[in-house]
């Protein structure tokens, strides 16, 4: 971790893979990029084996572009689709056992704050609905009860997509899946309300239809977690395979769901609101000065 870790030793540039050299020369390390500049810099995440048109992959792409300090970030994931792309990025990635991501993240964040007391080291958990709300439910909830200072992002595809389409706690009521032919009999878990009641200081629910907004939410969640406590983002990232969405219609589906049950929602405590407004005001001033100069 840190910029020294990323730099290529002098004289070794010509032996390094092209993608790595591009990453150091034109990447995000050590400079702030705006998510609207995507396509004009080398991204942290590389080619990954996720399905064509997967919107979880899209969310992860925006997530890496939005990271405020990639050189000081550790990402944790678990079994599920998301790990396929997370493990292909130039940010340290820890692969937990199924369900224990938030327990691992708790220990990691505490260790980092002892080892680097004067630096902000961000720990972010990205796992699916199975990893956080079904199998990892206990550890997710207890990390929130203990007010651990890291960000949890749930990429909710509403199904166990890797193992053939079993229903999860987050599948909507009545939905028929390959391994749930009778239709789901129970309601979708209200993860956002659970997070608010369990002590998260910043909670958001989002459908990936607006990259600028996704980046803003992710940055807010990470900044709030540095100082105040647990933060949670619930993102809708459809599974176009298990829900049989034609790849061309994936964005249309995200827009449709945004109008229905994934309306943008953001909740934070008053002190977090004050803190974030202060940070965003400073960022705006900095940008204005850059434009002037």
């Amino acid at each position: 971790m840190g910029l020294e870790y990323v730099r290529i030793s002098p004289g070794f540039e010509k032996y390094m893979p092209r993608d790595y050299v591009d990453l150091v020369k034109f990447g995000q390390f050590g400079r702030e990029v705006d998510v609207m500049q995507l396509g004009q810099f080398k991204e942290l995440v590389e080619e990954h084996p996720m399905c064509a048109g997967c919107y979880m992959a899209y969310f992860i792409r925006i997530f890496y572009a939005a990271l405020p300090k990639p050189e000081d970030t550790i990402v944790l994931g678990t079994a599920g689709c998301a790990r396929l792309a997370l493990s292909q990025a130039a940010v340290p990635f820890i692969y937990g056992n199924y369900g224990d991501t938030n327990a691992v993240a708790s220990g990691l964040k505490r260790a980092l704050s002892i080892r680097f007391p004067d630096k902000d080291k961000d720990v972010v958990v990205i796992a699916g609905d199975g990893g956080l709300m079904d199998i990892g439910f206990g550890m997710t909830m207890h990390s929130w009860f203990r007010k651990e200072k890291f960000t949890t992002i749930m990429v909710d595809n509403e199904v166990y997509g890797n193992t053939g389409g079993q229903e999860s706690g987050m599948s909507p009521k009545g939905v028929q899946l390959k391994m749930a032919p009778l239709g789901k009999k129970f309601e979708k878990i209200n993860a956002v309300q659970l997070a608010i009641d369990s002590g998260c200081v910043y909670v958001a629910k989002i459908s990936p239809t607006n990259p600028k907004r996704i980046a803003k939410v992710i940055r807010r969640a990470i900044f709030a977690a540095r100082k105040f406590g647990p933060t949670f983002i619930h993102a809708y990232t459809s599974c176009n395979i298990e829900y049989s969405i034609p790849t061309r219609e994936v964005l249309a589906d995200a827009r449709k769901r945004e109008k229905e049950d994934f309306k943008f929602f953001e909740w934070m405590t008053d002190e977090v609101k004050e803190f974030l407004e202060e940070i965003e005001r400073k960022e705006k001033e900095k940008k204005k000065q850059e434009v002037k100069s």
Partner: protein
Amino acid sequence: MYFVAHVHENECAKYNCKQCVLFCPEPNCLNYKESGHTAWVWTDRCKGCEICVYVCSDLLKRNCIEMVMVKAGD
């Protein structure tokens, strides 16, 4: 032989929009060059999902991207 996106650069350069680049799920697959004000596809990275075509043709009605067949080695 597989399906990839192809940007008609002359058409694309008329608009300064970049929306397809912002909605592609693959990293560094659809890129943008400042010099020609146009998007371009890194063909090796394209999985052929057509989300860019949806954005360009269905949402924005600009019809600058089309899907084409390429052979290995193209």
